[in-house]
């Protein structure tokens, strides 16, 4: 393989991994900023979304260049596919992490009864899902993928429980509407992070095995 091609393919692999790392880091910090009601960490996390969006765009441009210039095959073709398909999932994970962080800023430490325990569990679950998918992307493996569906169910159930709790809470405390909405936004964002982690894992599965696999049904 000529050096120019090899360099671009290496760059594609590295940029995909870097964007994965950024999306994971934003998820971890967003969840922590919620758990610790840390507005500074929330702001720092939200600010990182712009970088994630830019890296996602750069990744797409590089993947298209590799595809159009080199007509890659086998592992290289799978990498191009994975990069093109993973980029949007990683960007969406980062976007939802930003939303969680922005909600933390808006809530400004306000508490909604005691649903935070459930949300913290959702946060840990979303973080774990992103870690599984991103680590697999970086290490080109499918380790942990068997657990993703169960973890995704935890997020789906968590969101439904949060909705029920918020509905009941609003009957008793109509003045807490804004806080309720803030909490629901967090749960929705965490659930979406889980969905995109599943989507990312599906692309990684193809990258590794060459066979399409459906995780999030």
């Amino acid at each position, binding site marked *: 393989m000529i050096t120019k091609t*090899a360099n671009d393919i290496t760059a594609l692999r590295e940029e995909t991994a870097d964007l994965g790392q950024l999306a994971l880091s934003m998820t971890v910090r967003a969840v922590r900023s919620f758990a610790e009601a840390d507005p500074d960490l929330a702001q720092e996390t939200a600010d990182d979304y712009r970088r994630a969006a830019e890296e996602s765009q750069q990744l797409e441009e590089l993947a298209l260049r590799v595809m159009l210039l080199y007509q*890659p095959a*086998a*592992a290289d*073709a799978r990498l191009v596919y994975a990069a093109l398909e993973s980029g949007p999932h990683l960007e969406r994970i980062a976007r939802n992490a930003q939303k969680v962080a922005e909600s933390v800023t808006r809530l400004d430490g306000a508490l909604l009864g005691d649903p935070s325990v459930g949300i913290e569990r959702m946060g840990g679950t979303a973080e774990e899902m992103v870690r599984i998918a991103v680590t697999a992307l970086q290490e080109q493996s499918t380790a942990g993928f068997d657990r993703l569906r169960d973890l995704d169910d935890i997020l789906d159930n968590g969101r439904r429980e949060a909705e029920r709790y918020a509905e009941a809470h609003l009957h008793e405390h109509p003045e807490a509407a804004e806080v309720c909405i803030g909490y629901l936004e967090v749960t929705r964002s965490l659930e979406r992070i889980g969905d995109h982690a599943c989507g990312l894992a599906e692309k990684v599965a193809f990258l590794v095995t060459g066979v399409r696999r459906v995780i999030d049904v």
Partner: protein
Amino acid sequence: MSNNEDSAVLAARDLHLWYGEKEALKGISLDVRPHEIYALIGPSGCGKSTLLRCFDRMNDGISGCRVEGKVTFRGADLYAADVDPNDVRKRIGMIFQRPNPFPMSIRDNIAYGPRIHGVVKEGEIDEIVERTLRQAALWDEVKDRLHRSAISLSGGQQQRLCIARALAVDPEVLLMDEPTSALDPIAMAKIEELACELKHDYTVAIVTHNMQQASRISDRTGFMLMGELVESRDTARVFTKPQKELTERYITGRFG
């Protein structure tokens, strides 16, 4: 005989071939199935063309060439003592890298084979000429100049003429040894399109260095290296997720 070998049009089993002391094929076993395009890929000198030529016994005339193992055509041993190589070549046509029309008219190029095999009526020859030129997607381009020299045709037209010439003796198999490597992209595309059409009536085995060509037109692909068949699988699989690391390295250009 295995079931695969039974259903294959062409089959090799533990095929070894030596050029003098040099072992060019080292225990090749593969099947070419009916109405498929089977592509052989691999670096220069790996034995692709040698293997292809075993299927119509074109190595027979090479001094010091020795073959062991089994090569069958529709289950019958191609190297049996009572097999006439000329009969083999009638049923298994070969298209070479460089177009090699005879220095005679377009019509006579096509008529050459049928005449050798006993077709003498000019009306019958005319039918064969039109049929095979149509099959080779060349009729419309040459129908008004059938008596002109074949050498006056472009390279791509000459190669299609050679395909028509091969079809004129009613083969069952077409072997193509890098048939487009001397052609421009437009002529190459016509030959590829033609190969895809021909597989409905014939079985095609093609040697190519063009990886995209193999992935575009073939149903199954075999990767050869240093006289061995490393991998033989569905083309989509070979070019998506090869089973063998060597194949992956070759088709991604990381070989050597």
